[in-house]
């Protein structure tokens, strides 16, 4: 019966609803370019959500730990074998996402008798300048959103990943207003924390919420959460002497930047 086109569409719609429900409690992740690199930041209490993929690529993920792990391993394997057989310069985030991860995730999502990936991913690839940084979000159904490429006039210098589409949009609206090019790490950490606060507020409210909370509400929620959760952050360094650009920031290091 699932072979009938209508049933299939219905099954996919149900499945989308199921996945969205499963993902609806994730803590948001903000990634943004600053002068000396790309910052990934989230707040959390238990498990790691920001990972090193290759020399110039990092990943943030929300979803089921098992699924995140499979996708993370796949990405690392593909990047590592490519970097070994050709060169590190041939490892490209665009290819990794478009030709490897997206088709597999779409396939898993549409094979309605199998399990979909319960995960959303956000990637960042460091470039020589902030204008050349690439951000890319891959959804559980294989859909890809980038920060602008292929001649798009406006290129965003950030990417967000949140539990719901509504809170994603709120975070992007917030960053579109408050993001400044060529920030210092200190300013970037502040901007990312506020964006996280917006996303977290948006996620905990009802789904209908489309209004950006006011400045005080954002700051209040941020400080409340900072009191009980740890900052998880990592930087892809723009001008590191070594080929490996990924550096995790400790909670202490991130908090010292807020002082």
């Amino acid at each position, binding site marked *: 019966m699932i072979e009938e086109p209508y049933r299939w569409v219905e099954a996919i719609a149900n499945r989308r609803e199921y996945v969205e429900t499963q993902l609806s409690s994730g803590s948001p992740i903000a990634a943004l370019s600053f002068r000396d690199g790309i910052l990934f930041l989230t707040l959390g209490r238990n498990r*790691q959500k920001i*990972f*090193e*993929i*290759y020399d110039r690529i990092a990943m943030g993920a929300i979803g089921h730990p*098992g699924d995140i*792990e*499979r996708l993370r*391993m*796949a990405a*690392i*394997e593909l990047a*590592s*074998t490519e*970097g*070994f*057989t050709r060169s590190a310069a041939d490892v490209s985030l665009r290819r990794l996402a478009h030709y*490897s991860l997206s*088709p*597999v995730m779409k*396939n*898993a999502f549409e*094979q309605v008798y199998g399990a979909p990936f319960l995960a959303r991913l956000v990637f960042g690839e460091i470039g020589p300048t902030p204008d050349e940084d690439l951000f890319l979000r891959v959804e559980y159904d294989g859909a890809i959103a980038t920060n602008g490429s292929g001649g798009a006039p406006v290129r965003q210098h950030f990417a967000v990943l949140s539990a719901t589409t509504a809170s994603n949009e709120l975070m992007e609206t917030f960053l579109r207003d408050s993001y400044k090019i060529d920030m210092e790490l200190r300013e970037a950490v502040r901007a990312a924390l506020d964006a996280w606060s917006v996303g977290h507020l948006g996620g905990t409210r009802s789904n209908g919420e489309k209004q950006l909370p006011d400045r005080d509400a954002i700051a209040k929620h941020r400080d409340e959460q900072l009191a009980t959760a740890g900052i998880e952050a990592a930087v892809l360094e723009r001008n590191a002497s*070594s080929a*490996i650009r990924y550096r995790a920031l400790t909670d202490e290091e991130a908090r010292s930047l807020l002082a």
Partner: protein
Amino acid sequence: MEQRAMALDQFSLGSGEDFPALLRRKGLLGQPTAIVDLARGGGSSAMTQTESTTILAFKFSGGVLVAGDRRATSGHTVVYDRADKVLEIDRHSLMAIAGVPATAWEMARVLEHSFQYFRRTQLQEMSVDGKVRALSKLLRDNLGFVMQGVGVVVPIFATYDGNSHPEARLYFYDAMGAQFEAADYAATGSGSPAVRGILYYENNWGAKPLKDLNEDEAVSIALRALNTAAETDTATGGIDRTAKIFPVIKTVSRDGITTLPNDKIDKVYNESVA
């Protein structure tokens, strides 16, 4: 598409495998070479193979110093006089090679990717013992080539162990993969007998033991030792100041790897060797 999905499924089970195993699964690295029966004429004996170069390493006050000459030979011919035999594997590890360059560089490449692959997948740095063992395993896998008379590699591995008792560590290997931790110094390659004599002498009866030398003194001894090796060993290149060919000298310390610039080597050479 179906094949892709299947390929991805393997990843979930693959998290425990090391990088060479991953490369072999994907057909990107040869299987461990078979050991041929020498009695049936498998090739020249491993004993007759030379590892034509000189590599030395010793601990000094600033960590470990690793130095190598620049000459690459094939039989009696000098093929290349700017070979770099001291290779950086990660931020704190150096591998210096004596032996067949093709095999050695490939090993260094596999090793470099192995350490990074481990850190990225397992979310922790590989321990020094794990790294030492990884090189040992690559050498063991290469044994078939060694027995056939091609591909012998005898490396030195220097690293800085950042554990609860931070210290510089130095290892040398034989061609079969046995690893030995060196207390003070190690040397490998065809010019190494002379170097070993010098380092032994300096360590016991020199002005001060090797481990107490400052950087300039350490560089000076490394240059003198390499020059001595080049005096009698045709496969070891000396210092060619007209062509500005200097040995490669690198140090490993708590802060990572430093490559000594040529002018610094030239200066020390001028003051204490020439």
